């Protein structure tokens, strides 16, 4: 029995040492980490009010700071990374760099609201935290630290060996040639319609999953967003919720949209709903149902930038309440107390007429 206990103890020790200090995934997680750090570095370098886009990969693929920045007239960082990156990790890193007057736009993917805590804590950021960012890990709750310690499985170990060997062998990641690259603002660029043509068959067959309103409302991600909104309200930081891009033939239910909207509104944030609710034809997408191709990305970003500018420019309703501005039934009110920092001192509203799908490439 003693030998069994010894074997178990040694096993845990070897596992910890391997995953915390030896094994690494420089290609997959390394690329994510590089983007997280690059975004944070840019955020730290900006002194005035800024716009930060927080989302999954829908952020960099379907939104373009390069386009939004001149429309809004403030520097923009596209800090969306991947749907699997924990929101608590992103919030923990960005909280240190957000200041009164900053705006955070959050067109989160639906999956980010509904992922369970267990799933969220075993996302790719867990391995990043354990291997490269133990300072942030140490600042997080105990359960998160323990989960990060036990986040890696056999697949992770095997992938580490593969990636480390590939990098050591001088393997050049060909993904840039295949899918494009990221610019200094964190936008994905170069994911043209032509490069995306290889994925059109898969996109045509894709069936996006939409969680229910109840799942969205009660999801672990939703609770993290609420905590972040509380913090942002206290700091004078403006938060604007939004909808992720998706297929026009696979809309998000009315109830589900209302659930997402209420997460932000109830937390004192604004909510941006474009005409067509960010739904586009499948032909406007690049390789997944969350990633617009470059032309559609630019067009969508123009629409988002103008909407954000309009929110900032329009005065609030009578009285200029900090929240609760009433809109016509077909024009959801958007209150954004935190937007007061740099653009407007009062809540703003955006008239967003409900209509058909947005037209990528069309720019008014």
């Amino acid at each position, binding site marked *: *029995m003693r*030998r*069994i206990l010894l*074997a*178990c103890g*040694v*096993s*845990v020790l*070897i*596992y*910890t040492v391997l995953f915390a200090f030896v094994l690494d995934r420089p*290609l*997959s997680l390394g690329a994510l980490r590089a983007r997280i750090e690059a975004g944070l570095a840019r955020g730290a370098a900006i002194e005035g009010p800024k716009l930060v886009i927080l989302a999954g990969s829908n952020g960099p693929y379907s939104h373009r700071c390069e386009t939004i920045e001149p429309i809004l007239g403030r520097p923009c960082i596209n800090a969306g990374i991947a749907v699997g990156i924990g929101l608590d990790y992103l919030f923990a890193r960005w909280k240190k760099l957000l200041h009164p007057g900053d705006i955070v736009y959050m067109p989160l993917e639906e999956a980010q609201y509904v992922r*369970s805590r*267990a*799933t969220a804590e*075993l996302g790719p950021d867990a391995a990043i935290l354990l291997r490269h960012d133990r300072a942030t890990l140490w600042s997080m709750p105990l359960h998160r630290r323990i*989960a990060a310690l*036990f*986040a*890696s*499985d*056999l*697949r992770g170990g*095997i*992938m580490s*060996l*593969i*990636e480390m060997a590939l990098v050591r062998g001088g*393997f050049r*990641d*060909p*993904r840039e*040639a*295949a*899918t494009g690259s990221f610019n200094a603002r964190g936008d994905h660029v170069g994911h043209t319609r032509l490069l995306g043509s*290889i*994925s059109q068959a*898969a996109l045509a*067959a894709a*069936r996006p999953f939409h969680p229910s309103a109840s799942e969205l409302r009660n999801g672990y991600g939703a609770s993290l967003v609420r905590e972040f909104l509380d913090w942002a309200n206290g700091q004078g930081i403006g938060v604007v919720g939004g909808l992720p891009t998706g297929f026009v033939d696979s809309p998000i239910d009315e109830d589900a949209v209302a659930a997402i909207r209420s997460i932000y509104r109830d937390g004192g944030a604004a909510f941006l709903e474009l005409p067509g609710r960010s739904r586009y034809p499948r032909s406007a997408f690049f*390789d997944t149902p969350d990633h617009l191709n470059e032309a559609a990305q630019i067009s969508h970003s123009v629409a988002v930038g103008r909407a954000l500018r309009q929110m900032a420019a329009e005065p609030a309703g009578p009285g200029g309440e900090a929240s609760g501005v009433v809109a016509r039934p077909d024009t959801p009110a958007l209150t954004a107390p935190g937007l007061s920092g740099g653009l407007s001192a009062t809540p703003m509203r955006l008239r967003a007429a409900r209509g058909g799908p947005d037209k990528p490439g069309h720019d008014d």
Partner: protein
Amino acid sequence: MLFHSPIFILGFLPICFAGFFALGHVAGATGALIWLTAASLVFYGWWNPAFLPLLISSVLVNHTIAGKIRHSEQPRTWMAAGVALNLAVLAWFKYADFLLHIVVSASPPLGITLPLGISFFTFQQIMMLVDTARAATSSPVMDRSPVSWPGLTRPSTTCGVCSGKVVDGRTKSGHDAMGTMGTAAAGASIVHAFLPYAAFVTFFPHLIAGPIVRGAEIIPQLTAPDFARPRDKNLAEGLLIFLLGLGKKCVLADMFGSFADTGFGAAARGIDLTFFEAWYATLSYALQIYFDFSGYSDMAIGLARMLNVRFPLNFDSPYQATNISDFWRRWHITLGAFLRDYLYIPLGGSRVGRLRQAANLMATMLLAGLWHGAGWNFVVWGGLHGLFLVIHREYRRLLPPLPAMAGQALTLAAVILAWVPFRAASLSATLIVFRGLFGLSGVALPQMIVAAFPPLSAFAEPVAVMPSLGDARTLSFPEVSACLLLGWFIVLALPNIHHMTERSRHLVLTASFALSAQAVFFAPHVAPFLYFRF
């Protein structure tokens, strides 16, 4: 309750073991047996208490019928009635929808929930009734013809019951190579008392998914005077086997299961699979089902061992088999023994003409397929194995045996291909996977692989990602490739845990324990055992 769930490992198991040994100390073996039976019923009822009355009724009725068999002047009549009753209950819960759909294809499903483990506890009680009747009528011991399917001799196999080496198909203590006993011995050992019988049938380590054990093997162990005395050696050995089985299930089976699910899931949705997608899904499933079921069996063997009960071996490196008969002596050994002793041999076994033998083999394997589930895909799987066995028998009669390596490769290919209908959601999905396996839906490889190795573009179309392979990410192809290499190395080149030295077992535990703990306590999704649905 799943063996690999935290509630079982941290809750049920410590309480069950503590109560068992404490009561054994205070109230003797009978008290411990009562506790064990009660704990087993809690274990069973945890999933769905509604089926507890079914299990309890089954035990009561079968024990009553066994008594009738022993005391009646027409034991065979009682046995036939008992077997028919058991099969009727099984048919209702497992096959009613299937049969109804055959008769009236447009009929709506009856929506009957399959009680957990019904196939296993029903078969065990059928064995009990038949053995009792055989003993009562003093009929000859089971067919010992040297050519009866699937053969009785194996070179050197540890018998889980006695831990002795098998010599000429029989261990020193009288068990045959299948870990079973002859009918006469079985009949002589049957205990009349209700409590040991109930404890045997409901014994939680085998209740849900086997191994399919005979009362004659287990009841004498349950009624041994020092049954409930803790034994360090058994506790240590059992715990070690349990933890190694846990690793097989949680670390290996579930990993390969996720790969298999992607490919077979796509096929179920009517999406064509390219060559590598189809092969990777199929190879992954072959590993998943082996690691899953043999892992479960090891956990069951380990749990029983900790409670001073020895179970027979259920898997013996089946993918190392050199022919299809050999495979069936290594795969789900206790089911193979059941089919041989209670179906194939009563049908005439190998004592009849060649054509009849072939028909018996086909019938046995078709029913083996149906035992796994009420669906045509299982029938096809059973039919394929029946066909393989018939072909092998005829080949062996006419031609010299293949070299071992060639025989193993051919057997492996046949077994792997037969898993396709077994796993696929429907016959149309089966065809999609087969089309992919034969390259009829094209050959695709990730663009990054083709860019790195340009000669591959001669036969493979470059794609951004392979949507039905792994997680459909850029690096999924090398990831799944490496995992498959590891998995197939383990099953083809390494001994199974029952043939390992003590030192090797501890090394494997050192390599796997932390990963098992990660999977049990931190992985967000716990996959149930595949055989729970059979």
